[in-house]
């Protein structure tokens, strides 16, 4: 039977059949994903609105330039490329699982579901590392009161403004309290762990040490950056997490032979739709936060 010719003759809207030629569950999954697309879209557009309303925004190539095991080397885009390829790869294994499901090949579905689940966990692990790196990072920033301080990237602090000229940095050092000077000096010598001996130095000695180290100091940036970054990547990460949970359930049900009993693997297909959507959202999160 030629499907194309038969479709032409079908009166899709005259009742007695689904006009979408798809099961209820699949159509509803599509509608859910569409509504989720609007949720993510609204978040990202809100981020864009705030970013467009600012004269300065954090440069992603400065914020996201670390790679595990490479210390303080400047490697823009490297880690996020890894995360992107992990997600693309797990999307491919998911679509291969669906493909094996069409062929009623239980072993094949099991194999590819396992690979997809591993990909999901790998992505989550990368995100956990990245968040930890940002939340515990130490950047010397010039505060609005004219003093210097060591700031991490959180929802309340953003050290990613313009670079401060050297003279302004030296002037600000004079205004900075002894306690903050100890903090700044200790970021210069992580290996030593000599916080106690630093506290014993006078402010002038600390200022000399810091000046000699030629550190980069920036103004603080818009506070909204951290909230949007952690909010949106967190919401996406939660989707990845729930996708992994759904995939694990699909794996167990496959293993127990539930889909073989049912005669089709449509559940795997619907879980696949969700998983691909997570990849789809990452395309735009990647675009908005890391690339441009």
């Amino acid at each position, binding site marked *: 039977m030629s499907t194309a010719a038969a479709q032409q003759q079908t009166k899709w809207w005259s009742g007695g059949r689904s006009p979408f030629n798809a099961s209820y*569950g699949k*159509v509803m999954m599509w509608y859910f994903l*569409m509504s989720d697309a609007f949720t993510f879209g609204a978040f990202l*557009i809100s981020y864009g609105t705030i970013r467009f309303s600012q004269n300065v925004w954090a440069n992603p190539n400065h914020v996201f330039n670390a790679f595990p095991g490479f210390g303080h080397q400047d490697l823009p885009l490297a880690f996020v490329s890894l995360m992107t390829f992990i997600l*693309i790869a797990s999307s491919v294994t998911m679509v291969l699982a669906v493909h094996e499901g069409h062929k009623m090949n239980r072993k094949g579905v099991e194999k590819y579901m396992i690979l997809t689940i591993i990909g999901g966990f790998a992505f989550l692990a990368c995100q956990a590392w990245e968040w930890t790196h940002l939340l515990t990072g130490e950047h010397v920033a010039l505060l609005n009161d004219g003093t210097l301080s060591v700031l991490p990237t959180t929802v309340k602090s953003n050290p990613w403004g313009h670079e401060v000229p050297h003279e302004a940095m030296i002037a600000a050092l004079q205004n900075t309290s002894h306690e903050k000077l100890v903090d700044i000096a200790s970021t210069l010598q992580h290996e030593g762990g000599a916080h106690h001996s630093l506290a014993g130095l006078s402010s002038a000695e600390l200022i000399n040490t810091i000046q000699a180290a030629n550190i980069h100091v920036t103004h603080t940036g*818009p506070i909204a950056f951290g909230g949007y970054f952690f909010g949106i990547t967190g919401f996406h990460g939660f989707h990845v997490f729930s996708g992994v949970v759904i995939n694990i359930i699909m794996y167990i049900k496959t293993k127990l032979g539930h889909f073989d009993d049912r005669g089709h693997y449509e559940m795997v297909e619907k879980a696949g739709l969700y998983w691909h959507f997570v990849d789809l959202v990452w395309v735009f999160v990647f675009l908005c936060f890391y690339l441009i």
Partner: protein
Amino acid sequence: MSEHAVTSPEVTFAHAPAEGTGRIWKIFWLLSGITIIELALGFGLAKDWYGDPETSHTAILFVKGVICILSLAKAFYIVSVFMHLGDEIRNLIMTIVVPLCLFIWFIAAFLWDGNSWKNLRNRYHGTPAKTEQVAPAATEKGAKD
């Protein structure tokens, strides 16, 4: 083929299962290729390949526009092939795609609005500060009190 293919009473015509995995791998390489091009363009942004960020706004905006279009291409291939929307009948495609057209207005209107806030703030809040913080306004208030 039809004995297991029809999964529910709503399905009038079952899709013939794909023969091989060739198309999946083709799309995988396509997505990887587009991502590598995006990364190369983004790396150029990091290394100021397109001129000084302070002066060559148009060139940088153009590169960012190209990256956005490449991302839309990736989105199209993921939805069309990986999510098999391209294999569904036209009615299902339209019921998903037509509402998404709202995004055209959504993006344009809100980015325009954000830009307008910036212009208004810069115009009525004195010269644009080197930082975006509104610290000068706070000291003015303090002086009046």
